């Protein structure tokens, strides 16, 4: 456990030193969201109806585009094989990397979501529910994406391959995340949605670090 936290704080310090790496997904997220009113018009009823789906899809894209480089620095520096040789279980090391990735790449997106929600005329309750679903769902997105990132670790020019590979696996999370906001707008009970999304996230926490570790070992021993 101490190992996990010290690794997370180490990763966080590194990311904070190069601010560019965690600001880029945030800027991408905001710009893409702003493109929608510019392209489909500023009719507030329309915008508030499609806002949850829009924000969810954009968050998903922001994760998919950036997570491909999760292991890239290690791979280029050659420290990846050191990671594999370390006496600690690889899945814990991987999980720490994914956790710090989520803290630096997804948490900022969730923090600006209320702002974007109000810009898109989304009622306050729905903004709250949207943030909660993002909070529950994005860890699963990162965990599943990490498997793909580990598989493609040595491949150059994999920019579009990772989305193709991982996107179908994101569909259930997307469906439940946006449906919860829809249900909130119709004043239906929400606990079932949160329970299912929580189940997705815990299932990915249990399985994804192990699969990622397996994929990394396969890639390095080739």
């Amino acid at each position, binding site marked *: 456990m101490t190992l996990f936290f010290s690794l997370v704080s180490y990763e966080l310090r590194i990311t904070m030193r190069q601010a560019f790496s965690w600001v880029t997904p945030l800027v991408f997220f905001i710009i893409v969201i702003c493109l929608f009113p510019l392209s489909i018009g500023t009719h507030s009823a329309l915008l508030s109806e499609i806002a949850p789906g829009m924000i969810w899809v954009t968050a998903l894209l922001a994760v998919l585009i950036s997570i491909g480089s999760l292991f890239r620095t290690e791979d280029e520096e050659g420290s990846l094989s050191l990671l594999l040789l370390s006496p600690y279980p690889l899945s814990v090391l991987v999980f720490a990397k994914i956790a710090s990735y989520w803290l630096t790449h997804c948490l900022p997106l969730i923090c600006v979501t209320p702002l974007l929600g109000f810009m898109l005329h989304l009622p306050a309750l729905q903004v709250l529910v949207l943030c909660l679903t993002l909070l529950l769902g994005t860890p699963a997105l990162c965990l*599943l994406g990490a*498997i*793909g990132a580990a*598989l*493609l670790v040595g*491949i150059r020019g*994999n920019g579009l*391959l990772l989305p*193709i*590979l*991982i*996107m*179908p*696996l994101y*569909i*259930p999370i997307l*469906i*439940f995340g946006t*449906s919860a906001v*829809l249900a909130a707008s119709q004043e239906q009970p929400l606990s079932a949605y949160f329970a299912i999304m929580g189940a*997705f996230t815990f299932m990915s926490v249990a*399985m994804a670090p192990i*699969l990622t570790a*397996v*994929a990394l070992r*396969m*890639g390095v021993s*080739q």
Partner: protein
Amino acid sequence: MWDWLKQNGLSPKSFYRTSGLCLPWLTVLFLGCAGFGLIDGLYIAPADYQQGDGFRIMYVHVPSAFAAMAVYFAMAICAVLTLVWRVKLAAVCMSCSAPIGASFTFLALVTGSIWGKPMWGTWWIWDARLTSVLILFFLYMGFIALQSILAEQHYRDRACALIALVGVINLPIIHYSVIWWNTLHQGPSISQLAKPAIAPSMLYPLLAMIAAFFLFYLSVLFMRMRNQILLREKHTHWVREVVLS
């Protein structure tokens, strides 16, 4: 027993020999099943009382959708054999199945859409079954893309096996969430395809066509696998003899 099987039954060499013996029979059986299914399905079976002759599209749509799913599960089984027991033949089978499965999925999508036009009045609706077949198609595409980008063969086999496994774990989750999503967003108009129990005279051609699709899958799979085995085992003595003969 298992070691013996791995040494003898599942070795590429013995598979090459056995599959060569099986192929003509598979082809004959396929032609027989397809012939019976086509004649019975297109000519003998009576028209449906609701859908008229349009229901005959079912005889290619249902088998292709069924085969598309089954091929993906076969790939997942091969993936386990590849990852856990390192059966060489399973990796070949998995990688050779993917293009055939993808073509079946494509067929299921397009024939479903052709069937939908006269029945629903539109080429595409976001029906739960159509949507989950579409997602299955995406899964196949991801697998094939990964396969085509990885150069080193041993790593490619294992990476593809991993992604096939992850896909098959997710497939039921995706399927049920799509069904649930569909009931949430569905307008009340479409319930035409809720079919009553099928009459036997319509069932026999369907079974024959399903058998035909599987026999076709097996025969093309065997041909593909034989090609791949020659390529992968090119340094061995027996391949040299096969090529020179």
